[in-house]
């Protein structure tokens, strides 16, 4: 088995090269100054599914150094938006990593205003060095490639891979998350109404969804998971509310997106719940959400990937030359509306370009089984 390198290697290399280049430039101008460094006792974590006892959380100690000297009372931040983490007298700090969510989070110095090295405030000479200190925390699922076989297209290969999960991890992959309720609101004469809001709320119980305001064509949409619902249906236009007849509820079918066309009454506030004033049809598509993998290759490399099955197995169809460069994988949590009739499921191939990497997605070098 090939040894796995730490995820996020590419990003770290990039940072490293930048720092190295910057250091060279520095060195040309003056004598080499020490650099800032963030040392983490562990920066790479295999993802672990959520546990009710909180054991998916890991405490990590670290240290901020300038050369070999600790930087006290500096502020660090994870992911550019996390807690401000102050360093102690010995430059040490501690942070908590949530291993249930895949991520690649940079740890950087956010402020050195109150910071001290050897008890002295940080001068301008040291500032750049301290600010350049950087590390990253990566949480990822290991990926294993089981076999690579020729594709029907001789220029491509089919790569069979899987997410390697711990036996007691219970994780689902990419699948339907919500359905769409969309349609049109028009006046009694059939003219579209702009800025109307359609609201469904559960008749016996709680839970609701409100639509986007209708556009110039009277179109609205909202995303919801109907539980075979009986709901109230309300249309709000300015301060006016239109509702179903007294005692009537709306039946939302289960497991489908729907189209609801509503024509408001000429007078009063009661929607006549029969066609053509209320026309309800099922419609295509759903919002999907979940874990997918892809290859960290230039965006013009055309490859496709399938939705992982229950065991986390997926197949990539990749140009042979791209695969031979041993690209890293990336893992991503994706949410996307897909407007096709047939529901997607594990094993279905996603279109080329469907899965794109983001900065915060962990990169992983796969092992070969």
């Amino acid at each position: 088995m090939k040894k796995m390198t730490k995820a996020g290697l590419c990003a770290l290399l990039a940072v490293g090269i930048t720092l190295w280049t910057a250091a060279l430039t520095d060195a040309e101008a003056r004598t080499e100054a020490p650099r800032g460094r963030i040392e983490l006792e562990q920066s790479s974590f295999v993802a672990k599914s959520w546990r009710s006892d909180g054991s998916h959380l890991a405490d990590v100690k670290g240290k901020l150094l300038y050369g070999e000297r600790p930087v006290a009372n500096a502020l660090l931040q994870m992911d550019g938006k996390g807690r401000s983490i102050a360093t102690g007298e010995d430059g040490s700090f501690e942070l908590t990593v949530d291993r249930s969510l895949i991520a690649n989070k940079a740890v950087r110095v956010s402020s050195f205003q109150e910071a001290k090295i050897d008890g002295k405030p940080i001068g301008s000479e040291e500032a750049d060095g301290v600010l350049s200190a950087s590390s990253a925390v990566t949480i990822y699922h290991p990926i294993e490639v089981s076999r690579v076989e020729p594709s029907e297209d001789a220029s491509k290969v089919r790569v069979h891979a899987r997410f390697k999960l711990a036996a007691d991890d219970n994780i689902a992959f990419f699948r339907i998350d919500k359905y769409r309720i969309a349609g049109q609101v028009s006046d009694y004469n059939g003219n579209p109404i702009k800025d109307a809001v359609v609201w469904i709320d559960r008749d016996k119980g709680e839970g609701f969804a409100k639509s986007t305001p209708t556009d110039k064509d009277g179109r609205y949409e909202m995303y919801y998971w109907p539980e075979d619902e009986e709901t109230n249906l309300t249309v709000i236009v300015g301060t006016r509310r239109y509702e179903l007849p007294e005692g009537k509820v709306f039946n939302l079918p289960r497991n489908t997106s729907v189209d609801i066309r509503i024509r408001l009454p000429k007078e009063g506030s009661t929607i006549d719940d029969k066609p053509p004033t209320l026309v309800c049809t099922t419609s295509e598509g759903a919002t999907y959400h979940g874990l997918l993998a892809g290859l960290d290759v230039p965006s013009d490399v055309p490859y496709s990937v399938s939705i992982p099955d229950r065991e986390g197995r997926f197949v990539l169809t990749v140009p042979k030359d791209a695969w031979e460069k041993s690209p890293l994988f990336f893992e991503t949590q994706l949410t996307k509306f897909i407007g096709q009739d047939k529901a997607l499921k594990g094993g279905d191939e996603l279109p080329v370009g469907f899965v794109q990497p983001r900065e915060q997605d962990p990169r992983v070098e796969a092992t070969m089984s």
Partner: protein
Amino acid sequence: MKKTHATVGTALSLLLVLSSCATNNNANNASPSPTATGTASATNSPTATGATGTSFENWGSYGYTLANNRHVPFKEITADNVNDLGVIWSADLKTLDADVKNGNQSYPVVVDGIMYVTTAGNQVFAFDAATGNTIWHWKPEAEQAANFSKAGIIANRGVAVGEGKVFMLAVDNSLVSLDQKTGELIKMIKLSDYIDGVTIENGYYETTAPQYYKGNVYIGSSGSDNGVRGFVAAFKASDLTPAWDSPFWTVPPKGQDWLAKSAFQGGGTVWNPVAIDEETDIMYFSTGNPAPDFYGENRPGDNPYTDSVVAVNAMTGKLVWAKQEVSHDMWDYDAAASPMIINATVKGAKKKLVVQGGKSGLWFAWDAATGDTVWDKVPFTKIDKKDPTPEGTVSYPGVLGGENYAPETYDPNTNYVLIPGIEEPSLYKSAKTEAEASTPDSPGAAAFGTSYEAVTDVKGYGTVTAIDVATGKKAYQIKTTDAQRGGLTSTDSGLAFFGELDGKINALDIKAGKVIWTFQTTGNSVQAAPSIFTVDGKEYIAFTTGGTKPMVHVFGLGGDKTQGQAGQAETGNAHSG
């Protein structure tokens, strides 16, 4: 009735002229801040803050103190003189600003003679607590407020005050900090900038009051029924940046653990304020139901930590203990109301407890330090729970509870906890099984429409139940006309005050279990418990009313006894879990 509403402009000018005084760093303490305490000589002259009076006993946070036990040590108003209570001042919030929305659920916070009241639609008023003069008023920009209507419910339950700031959560998942003296906006953040996915579009919204403690602002959220993932988060009061590395998530992320099979997932939102034990730094909070509400097949097991009371270290965000009230809920039985931390006598010994009554109609008491059960599943409503079927079954309590968000009070003199209850069943219909449901073969077919709703012809009512904490048994229960949606507040003179949905407010003799005073306010729908405070030694009781006439009513001895017309009970969806 005295109506003395100064304009905001006047108040602000006044503030500009007057010199500032030191601010109270932790207003959650019920005791007055040192800077504000003084002699009682200048009773009616406003201080530098605009407040009348010089000595104050505060109602410093949502539940009086951070323990949320809603019991004040005041004794001026008693069973003997309660009939002398009248209106000292009232404020019609819609008159003050036409953009105030219906459905107020605000729990006033009173600090150093200034009362902070929020409104549906997220406006904040600072009133001189003794006179009702408006000291300042903040409202969101129209552009932001326009977004609020995307959430189904725009109620708000109040503010937290600390470090010279007033904190509020806006319905669009913003956290707002205002200058405590001027009401000027200091900072507003979007929670989604720090916590992924916390947006109205995803089903999250905010109605709860935040809590301030030791430099942090603690928040939860609403949206369980929309399938969001519940959390509690801590932000630094100084700059509204996160105080923890991660929120405390009450349920797994989508697609993990007990949510691995279910598509529309989540629940466990914390939609009422946390309680905090200032001796141990442990916070306690209640969590909402799992989602989907009525279809449980794909969320196997107990569904931790939904319908639970959870103890977390407030400094670190780490779990201390958790106890579930309803496992694998199929009835929308949130643990909704904030827990209380009480020092009570149990079987002859003093014990620090965390207590909570759920929408399940069951009341619980746990050891605050360990979570060990002290009293388990004490019923305070009719309990008749049946498994929902596609055809529907009637269960007690219904989807409103039990005890909804309305908070309990604890009277140490009688050792009674008083529970505001709702006695009303619901017809529960489960979704059809996966086998019966399938993706339609022919999209485009007219597959659905409307039908007549199933009606349960049982008229609901409300209750107030006294539980003797010594025995864990019901001491008595009184009935009220409508569901109890506001909550109770008790005084050291043995009275508990609570309102009703028709706009009446009552005083209960706690020991006797009898309502001894009733007053019809000029508002309707009391949907919050009163806050009780003193200014220069005089005791005041502040109620807000909601419904279509959002108002503030402040009572005191010698006030105006003119009563209003009976209001219309608002029995619609006031819940927001």
